[in-house]
């Protein structure tokens, strides 16, 4: 569904070389014309639809009448035939007898037509020639009388159209009046930021524009106090393939049943069915492959001694890898990346640059068994002077733990665990509300690799 986009929207930066004021005037004029149109439409609907209906319900007086005749009224508009019920009645008001064709107030006013013939006929079926009914007449003009009173439900819907114009127009004009002559900074401060704020009130946060702690972080972990959530779990891919396979094969099966249930064999449909079946089988195969990959590679668990992290501090990190694998290599890295998003014309361009990377551990040529997961514990130090985690609408500095591995007969896998890194406390900081200091390093945990070489804490820049 198309998003609503603001007309005359100023892009960020110096997109325009023309006058902002003239553009603003045009925009304000545009919304003002919307508002006036809406008011006009509103008045028209009130005057010619709602008000007559309201009067007929409130002011008209009852009078006994006799049904003389019924007919289906028709008219031709823009090449289409429209219908309405028409009932001829006779009634007396005072000394005078009146006879007219009527149904409701719109019929009397010369309208009341619709495309729905059946509805009109159903209305007519309620009336029998010769029967006595009650009509309601206008005391100010007894020549006008109706059999049906009250509001039609669609009249209120019609009212919504000009009402929306009024709201849009009024809103747009108010916005421009409020905005007129104000600078970018003033607008940003007055609750209408031109750049979005991450949280509802970043000025109230202790660390504005630092991403929130990712949801899914668990405390305590099995081994260390915090278990980190993983980005994009493999089970999602599995469910995705399953869903696609079920949907496709289910649709093809339903279609085949609908065609073949009569027992007749259709050559053309069969030819069409063959490639559909091939696609279905491919999806099933993809699902099973993903299932095997997920099962074989197993779960990657990373736990850490404290969270969020602080520049200049050390932390313990624990890794557990389950599965049934003959590993070529497995490594754990900590990385810091910049990501900048640029919307240029109608394309969004996203660029990522890795600015720092450190290999925390690397192990080669070992086996992982279902009953004996691979476990290591090591240490991270976030260097002083590094940039903390930062996120704004188009720019981000992010920290991550990556676990990558290569196993025989399986593709290289990678699991990413987002981190939040805070700046070092300054002398002026109120450290009472600062995250508590991390657990001090005591002894290195041992790796449980069965054989092969291992490398810890090498830095790659």
């Amino acid at each position, binding site marked *: 569904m198309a998003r609503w986009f603001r007309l005359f929207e100023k892009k*960020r930066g110096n997109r325009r070389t023309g006058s902002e004021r003239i553009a603003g005037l045009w925009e304000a004029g545009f919304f003002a014309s919307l508002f006036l149109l809406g008011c006009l439409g509103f008045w028209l609907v009130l005057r010619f639809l709602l008000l007559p209906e309201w009067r007929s319900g409130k002011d008209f007086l009852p009078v006994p009448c006799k049904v003389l005749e019924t007919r289906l009224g028709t008219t031709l508009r823009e090449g289409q035939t429209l219908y309405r019920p028409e009932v001829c009645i006779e009634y007396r008001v005072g000394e005078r007898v009146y006879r007219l064709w009527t149904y409701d107030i719109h019929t009397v006013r010369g309208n009341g037509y619709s495309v729905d013939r059946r509805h009109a006929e159903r209305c007519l079926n309620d009336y029998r020639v010769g029967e006595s009914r009650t009509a309601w007449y206008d005391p100010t003009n007894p020549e006008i009388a109706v059999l049906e009173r009250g509001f039609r439900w669609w009249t209120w819907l019609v009212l919504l159209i000009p009402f929306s114009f009024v709201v849009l127009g009024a809103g747009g004009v108010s916005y421009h009046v409020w905005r007129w002559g104000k600078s970018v*900074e003033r607008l940003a401060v007055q609750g209408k930021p031109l750049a979005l704020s991450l949280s509802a009130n970043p000025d109230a946060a202790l660390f504005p524009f630092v991403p929130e702690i990712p949801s899914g972080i668990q405390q305590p972990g099995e081994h260390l106090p915090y278990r980190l959530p993983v980005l994009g779990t493999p089970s999602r891919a599995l469910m995705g393939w399953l869903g696609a396979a079920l949907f496709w094969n289910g649709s093809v099966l339903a279609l085949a049943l609908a065609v073949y249930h009569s027992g007749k064999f259709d050559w053309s449909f069969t030819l069409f069915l063959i490639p559909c079946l091939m696609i279905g089988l491919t999806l099933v195969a993809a699902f099973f492959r993903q299932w095997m990959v997920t099962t074989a590679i197993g779960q990657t668990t990373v736990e850490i001694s404290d969270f969020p992290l602080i520049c200049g501090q050390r932390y313990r990190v624990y890794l557990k890898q389950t599965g049934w694998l003959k590993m070529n290599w497995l490594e754990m890295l900590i990385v810091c990346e910049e990501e900048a998003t640029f919307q240029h014309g109608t394309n969004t361009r996203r660029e990522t640059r890795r600015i720092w990377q450190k290999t925390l551990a690397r192990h080669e040529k070992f086996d992982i068994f279902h009953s004996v997961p691979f476990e290591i514990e090591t240490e991270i130090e976030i260097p002083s002077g590094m*940039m903390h985690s930062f996120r704004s609408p188009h*720019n981000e*500095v992010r920290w991550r733990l990556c676990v990558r591995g290569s196993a025989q007969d399986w593709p290289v896998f990678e699991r990413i665990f987002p981190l939040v890194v805070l*700046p070092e406390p300054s002398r002026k*900081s109120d450290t009472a509300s600062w995250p508590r200091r991390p657990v001090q390093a005591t002894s290195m945990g041992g790796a449980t690799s069965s054989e092969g070489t291992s490398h810890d804490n090498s830095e790659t820049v």
Partner: protein
Amino acid sequence: MEPRIVIHLDHRKTVYEPGEILSGKVIITPADCGEAIKAVELSILWYTDGKGDQDLHVHHFRRWSQDGDSPLSISAPLRFQTILPQTPLSYDGLIIRIRWCVRVRVFPVKGREIVEEITFRLGHVAPARVRIQ
């Protein structure tokens, strides 16, 4: 004569710690041009620069404007003060930069607004440098 804006930071500092007080003054000359000025706005803000779309956030904002028929009083410097936040710190990255500045806009009664700004550093984050292999 067009007003001229000079922004001074107290103690001649250019590097600040998070949580520190940033204070200074704005001098607009000539001193008698108050009648020709409708309003003065001061913002202490950060913005990003680099390869991504620019993001901006105003940390502190102050506005001085004419009071009815009385001209804006700018014979004395306009003082400002705020406590700087913990984040985001100033940063020189490969494709992202974060800059803090004090920005002043003067809105004359006639003519276009005049803008002046000075940058300062918040924190001591080292510039990002990667050896390209």
